[in-house]
């Protein structure tokens, strides 16, 4: 029997022990059309989040235990209200993080905006030829490097996010050196997921079991190589490790999950460019939508908990049990499996409580 020191899961307090994140997609507008983009962002989009609605929701969510925002997109720096958004969220008490392609950081407006950013992650797809190929634009690599120079000159903490593909995995050693030599605090390796534009453009680039092992081994080599100097975050888990520590991915497996509070159950909620609020991750089945920032009520979380949390708990548990049963697949992309299960649940094993 175990007893935990401190309240490991306390969602509200002066010193956050685990961040509860609102991932915000304020626009799908982007200056690039990356081959692997999970949100299929592109220059042609014009829908943007209403800033007033967003501010109202951020105040509500902060009072309910969320304390970190991760602005993604599209390209966040194409959202005209980004500076105001980050200034506001900072004043509320949020930690501000961004994921960006790094190509639009040279303007004075961008530099002002960066003053309100705690950590910015820049997407890098590999050495220049591969980066430009995946980014679908010649010169993208050079402009990204210029963005890194801006961050370095501002002494702004930054990370590098890399989507690992069958074409890029053998550049991981290079990538570690690139990130470290540029002074990155974080190198995050996220496996390619077959979602969004990747379904059409990278259908043949599926990461098979052998390659997953190679990425896992190389990722941990980099963790060890840069230990104490740069965080290397690998968003892949070994099946044995996941089954031994299911609380890594599931709030339902943590003691705090008994509180029934949304922020104790879900590490992340997502606001799409339409204003829809989704649980868990971008791409999660919208049937389980929490609401919309344009018309949410002050009981939106409680209503969601009563209506959908039993379903979502089943989806988490079923995904874990499937991983446990499949002993031929050692390396697991948890989020991809969970999203897939959120759709499968509608047609198979899990009743929808409504």
């Amino acid at each position, binding site marked *: 029997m*175990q007893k935990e*020191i401190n309240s490991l899961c306390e969602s509200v307090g002066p010193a956050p*022990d685990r961040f509860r*994140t609102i991932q915000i997609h304020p626009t799908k507008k982007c200056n690039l059309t990356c081959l692997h983009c999970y949100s299929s962002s592109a220059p042609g989009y014009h829908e943007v989040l209403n800033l007033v609605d967003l501010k109202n929701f951020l105040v509500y969510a902060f009072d309910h235990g969320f304390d970190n925002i991760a602005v993604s997109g599209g390209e966040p720096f194409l959202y005209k209200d980004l500076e105001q958004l980050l200034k506001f969220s900072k004043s509320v008490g949020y*930690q501000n993080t961004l*994921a960006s392609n790094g190509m639009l950081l040279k303007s004075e407006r961008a530099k002002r905006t960066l003053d309100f950013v705690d950590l910015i992650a820049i997407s890098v797809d590999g050495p220049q030829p591969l980066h430009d190929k995946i980014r679908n634009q010649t010169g993208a690599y050079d402009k990204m490097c210029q963005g890194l120079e801006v961050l370095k000159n501002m002494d702004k903490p930054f990370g590098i996010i890399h989507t690992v593909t069958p074409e890029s995995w053998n550049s991981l050693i290079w990538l570690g050196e690139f990130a470290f030599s540029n002074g990155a605090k974080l190198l995050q390796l996220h496996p390619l997921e077959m979602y969004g534009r990747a379904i059409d453009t990278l259908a043949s680039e599926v990461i098979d079991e052998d390659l997953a092992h190679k990425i896992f081994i190389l990722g941990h080599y980099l963790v060890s190589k840069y230990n104490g100097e740069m965080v290397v*975050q690998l968003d892949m888990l070994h099946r044995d*490790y996941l089954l031994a520590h299911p609380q890594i991915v599931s709030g339902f497996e943590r003691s705090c999950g008994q509180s029934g509070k949304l922020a104790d159950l879900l590490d992340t909620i997502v606001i799409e460019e339409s204003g829809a609020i989704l649980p868990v991750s971008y791409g999660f089945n919208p049937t389980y939508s929490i609401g919309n920032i344009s018309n949410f009520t002050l009981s939106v979380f409680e209503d969601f908990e009563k209506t959908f949390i039993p379903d979502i708990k089943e989806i988490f548990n079923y995904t874990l049990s499937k991983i446990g049963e499949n002993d031929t697949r*050692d390396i697991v992309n948890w989020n991809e499996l969970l999203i897939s299960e959120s759709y499968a649940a509608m047609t198979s094993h899990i009743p929808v409580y409504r």
Partner: protein
Amino acid sequence: MAKLEKGGVDKVDLRKISSSIVGLKNQGLVIDQVFIKGKPGFSRVHIYGRVDPEFLKKMVPGNTPLKRFEVFPFGIINPEGFNFKGTVESY
């Protein structure tokens, strides 16, 4: 790297190596997390930090039945302190 790249490590060995890594990780100090697409691993950056051995000696005496712990520096650039949490066996 060359062996991995040229297929010099077969499927069985790949699985063995991965399993060995997991075995080591299970003895580690920081429990891993995974992050969703487009969400920077911010909390990992917060967790990251060197731990003063003297501090640990005081906090974790040799006979403490400590199973696992994590350390949380506050702030990225200039952490001034850290929180401590852990799991012990209860009797």
